């Protein structure tokens, strides 16, 4: 990044001199033509990933335009209908990212296949619909170097389409998450056809069972990473999976067909396995896990979320793993003895997650952190029994922490947050949602200059003053969550917008602020219930934040004009517009039609009848989903009152 900026500095005078030159001599000669191809390519290599940078680069001169086309390897088109033209310009593209094109038809795929031919290495269709097996077959046959294919969310694809995918013989990485119509037969075709597969994700492919998975294990011997989460598999295919020679990453989340007995038979386990995720396997207890761990000695990362009880037995069986670095026990029942045993392990953990664990006490946690001093990532979300004692021990022994998540720790007093800022300077990610932190705490935390993500949602004690500290010190901030921070107003947001140019996500819902421009990288914006935000805020937003993908405008004061301004943001994919008083049906229709890339729109149900049905049909054919909400307009409650009501509902 720094290098790229440097480059821009240098180019600026060049552009000026170039213009002068042109004016003076009225010649079409450009100094840029003197730069050799290699030099321009090196410059392009160093440009930031922001697509606008490359766009401005290619607009410098014809030579740059040509060279940028030649240099481009990754293409992420906004509209599939312009693809034929785009593809003739960028003939050297190897990676095709179609996540912004909701409508990708067989014709589109055929175009891509015939334009890219053997160049194409990777294609991402995870957010696209409307293509069938015919288009996939075209890709598979013509692009014989295709290595990576993402078919996630292709819920309509059937076995016949899977059989077409199987024609891509060189495929190495394939994602088929949520391909619910695919059965063993389709997966069988892929197993036979794509023998070089190294990564396969079948998460949520609920039609696939033991037979298909077993065949994958028999035919694709090179598999490194396998995601079988939520598949109805049982002990029949487990042995053959664990016999895969190179398997490193295995996910078996929510496999209800697996129980202790099926795990007990695993004798010669997988020596190469490094990552294992067995969360939410209802029928597996620590006995089954113990037999798994006894045959997978090289595990480095274990995830055992939901439903296990972390007691002495489980901790002991985990202790067999001499290379363990990371363990996630989210939502488990934890005992003090279990935490103590984890602390006593000879291995030193890098990552520990105890999010939403019941039974985490000061006693257990302080013992653990005083022993495991190398922790980098710690998650103690919703551990509602811990107090400042734990925080004090955490900050004093784990000074290298880079990520600390402690949402909803209500017993931690505001003084404890000052300790975090004083001791843990390498923090990059900090989640303090729903805590007692105040401006003093924020001032201390602003010392963590590497901070890139800060979540302060529901922190009712902070004001603009504290936020101003963050805005001045944490320059690298990318994500800021100020959900329901009622103490924040314009001045606080202005400080952030001025100090954090890299901000990508900001949520200021329920704040009493007006938006300020200045964050060009913004991709997500939530300004729900910001009553004071009106069209005047939308115009600079539309002008500066051309990367915006998601916006929530509910309950704000934006009208037709503001919405139409937003429509000029070509990346916009998700739009939530509930209870906008100034919005008319025709303005909405115009805005919807103008936003070509929309994939998700949340609207109030009253618009359903006031707009012609054909508009919705057209938009749906473009790949846009509608969600209708019936909610009545709610006057805002006092935030404290809202919190109380939440508690009542929980009880």
């Amino acid at each position, binding site marked *: 990044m720094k290098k790229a900026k440097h480059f821009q500095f240098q180019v600026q005078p060049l552009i000026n001199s170039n213009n002068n030159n042109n004016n003076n001599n009225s010649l079409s000669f450009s100094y840029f033509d003197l730069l050799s191809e290699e030099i321009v390519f090196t410059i392009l290599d160093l440009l930031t990933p922001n697509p606008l940078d490359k766009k401005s680069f290619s607009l410098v001169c014809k030579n740059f335009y040509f060279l940028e086309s030649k240099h481009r390897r990754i293409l992420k088109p906004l509209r599939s209908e312009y693809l034929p033209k785009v593809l003739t310009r960028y003939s050297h593209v190897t990676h095709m990212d179609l996540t912004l094109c909701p409508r990708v038809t067989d*014709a589109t795929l055929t175009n891509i*296949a015939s334009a890219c031919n053997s160049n194409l290495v990777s294609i991402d269709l995870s957010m696209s619909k409307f293509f069938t097996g*015919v288009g996939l077959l*075209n890709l598979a046959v013509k692009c014989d170097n295709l290595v990576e294919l993402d078919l996630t969310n292709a819920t309509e694809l059937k076995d016949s389409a899977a059989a077409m995918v199987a024609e891509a013989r060189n495929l190495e990485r394939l994602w088929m998450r949520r391909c619910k119509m695919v059965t*063993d037969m389709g997966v069988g075709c892929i197993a036979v056809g794509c023998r070089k597969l190294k990564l396969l994700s079948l998460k949520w492919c609920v039609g696939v069972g033991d037979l298909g998975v*077993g065949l994958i294990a028999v*035919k694709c011997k090179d598999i490194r990473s396998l995601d079988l989460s939520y598949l109805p598999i049982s002990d029949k295919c487990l042995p053959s999976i664990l016999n895969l020679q190179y398997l490193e990453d295995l996910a078996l989340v929510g496999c209800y067909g697996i129980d202790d007995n099926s795990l007990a038979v695993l004798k010669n386990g997988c020596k190469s396995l490094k990552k294992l995720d067995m969360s939410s396997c209802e029928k597996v207890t620590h006995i089954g896990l113990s037999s798994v761990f006894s045959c997978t000695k090289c595990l480095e990362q274990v995830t055992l979320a939901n439903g296990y009880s972390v007691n002495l037995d489980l901790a002991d069986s985990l202790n067999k793993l001499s290379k363990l670095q990371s363990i996630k026990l989210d939502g488990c029942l934890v005992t003090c003895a279990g935490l103590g045993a984890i602390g006593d392990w000879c291995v030193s953990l890098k990552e520990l997650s105890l999010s939403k664990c019941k039974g985490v006490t000061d006693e257990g946690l302080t013992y653990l952190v005083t022993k495991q001093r190398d922790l980098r990532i710690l998650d103690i979300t919703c551990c509602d029994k811990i107090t400042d004692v734990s925080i004090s021990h955490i900050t004093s022994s784990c000074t290298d922490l880079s990520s600390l998540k402690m949402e909803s720790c209500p017993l931690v007093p505001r003084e404890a947050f000052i300790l975090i800022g004083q001791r843990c300077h390498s923090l990059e990610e900090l989640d303090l949602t729903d805590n007692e932190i105040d401006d003093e705490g924020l001032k201390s935390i602003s010392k963590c200059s590497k901070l890139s993500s800060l979540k302060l949602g529901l922190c009712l004690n902070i004001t603009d003053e504290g936020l101003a500290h963050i805005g001045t010190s944490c320059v690298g901030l990318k994500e800021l969550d100020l959900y329901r921070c009622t103490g924040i107003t314009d001045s606080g947001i202005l400080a952030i917008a001025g100090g954090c140019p890299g901000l990508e996500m900001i949520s200021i819902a329920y704040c009493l602020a007006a938006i300020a421009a200045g964050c060009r990288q913004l991709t997500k914006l939530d300004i729900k219930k910001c009553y004071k935000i009106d069209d005047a805020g939308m115009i600079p937003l539309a002008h500066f934040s051309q990367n915006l993908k998601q916006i929530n405008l509910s309950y704000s004061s934006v009208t037709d004009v503001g919405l139409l301004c937003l429509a000029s943001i070509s990346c916009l994919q998700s739009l939530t517009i509930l209870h906008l008083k100034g919005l008319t049906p*025709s303005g909405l229709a115009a805005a919807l039609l*103008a936003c070509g890339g929309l994939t998700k729109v949340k609207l109030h149900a009253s618009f359903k009848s006031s707009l012609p049905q054909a508009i919705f049909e057209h938009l749906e*054919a473009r790949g846009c989903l509608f969600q209708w909400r019936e909610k009545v307009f709610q006057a805002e409650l006092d935030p404290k009152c809202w919190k109380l009501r939440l508690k009542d509902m929980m009880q």
Partner: protein
Amino acid sequence: MDHKEMPRPTADTWGKSFPSGNELLKNISSDDTPLTISQRPQQKWEDPSMLDYNTRIEPPFQEFKQRSETQSSLPCNPNNQNKVTDEDVQMNGTIQTEKIQDWDPRAMLNNLNFLEQKIHQLQDLVHLIVGRRSQALGRPDELLAQQKQLITADLTSIIVQLISTAGSLLPSVKPLSGTTPTGQLGQLGGLFLPSTVGPNGSVQPQNNGGSKVSDQSNQMDITVNCGNEQNYNVEEHESKDDEDADEGENLPPGSYEILQLEKEEILAPHTHFCTICGKGFKRDANLRMHMRGHGDEYKTPAALAKPNKEATSEPMLIKRYSCPYAGCKRNKDHKKFQPLKTILCVKNHYKRTHCDKSYTCSRCNTKKFSVIADLKTHEKHCGKDKWLCSCGTTFSRKDKLFGHIALFQGHTPAIPLEETKGPTVPPDRGEGNEAINKVRSINFNFGSNAPNGNEVQNTADVKGNIEDPTGYFSPLNFDTWNFGGFHEFPRPPYEDSESSLSFLIPGSCNYTVPGSCNYTQKTGAESSSNNPE
């Protein structure tokens, strides 16, 4: 044999029009290593030409081995290029007329006429191509490949139809009437082999005697896409192989008593006879119940009880049975004699192996059995064999199919066509229809300017048809073949949105629908306009 006289008058011209007729077929599957699938050892193939072409014949039943030598000269002349002339058809026809008495000549004539038409059509096509070739010299190879592909597909269809026509005659041939089966087979093989993948194709016709040949015609398969090997399974071995169950028993010879029942005894419907009236019964218990009617002395508990086995005290010699059929492996004179365990085994073995199959399945009318229990087992599952492998083998159970696929390289599950027909895409979208049409019919769009992806589409066509064994192989079922090459034009897609926008919104936004309505069906239109007929 016959193949030497096989006329091949236009083989040369044909070779010109597509010099490497099978190349494209090979291209489709990269690994064309022929597989060796043999469940029983094959010793008798000494004919080197056979071995060269990886042709194998897999006899599933014993008697076939005895005849296999005569059949080993299945013509597999590679020069016999993909041309089926009228003479072929006629010759085939004449041979059949000589040998076969009870078949419907009218239907046969119809078929032959149809085939003749087809061949003429094809001839015209080739003329056309030859004519165009001179004009379009600068054309890319794609077009040529396309033409080749089309012709190959058409030829394949003709050949298959021919085979099925011929095959419909065969059941009426008596199994042991001289050389007939061999001659027939020769014909079949001669017509059949060239249509496969040439030197790499390995053919495994299975034949268990004349009575079974009809099955063969139904199950012949031309696998184009993947495994080049042909593996016909006449039937999934669903009959309980109770005679094979004792294969591994390995009793030392002499340690058991060998009994051999006579043929009549084996085939007799009853084995227990009343000594008084002579009535026969299948079971001893039924005989005992019957005996009660002959007098009070048969009503005593002792008489009604099972005949007691007094021999339990002394060590009984194990009884094993021999098949009376000379030369059978189950016959005690056979070198590698393997005895049968029980009388039931003897009966089933004898009927299955050495008797006519007189019980026909009433559902499919093709499968025949000699043991009624086998028929019943089959009828239970008949029509349910929905698990299909690319090699043409069907399975009643999915796990059996996957076991088969795990075992053999290159075999892949075949997705039944019904699914492609189903609502993959909501019917109001043109592309959906288009896709279905493409898979279902052979497009005759060779004259077209090869728009994007035509090449591939044709591959899909051939495959799609081949993967559907019912449409492809059922005799006289010409309907599934879109021989004329006119498939229904798919509706131009996206009508809905186009019309929907005609009444656009009151808003004054300067907005045009981005090219989304331009997805018209160029390939379809072009193929139709360029159709030669």
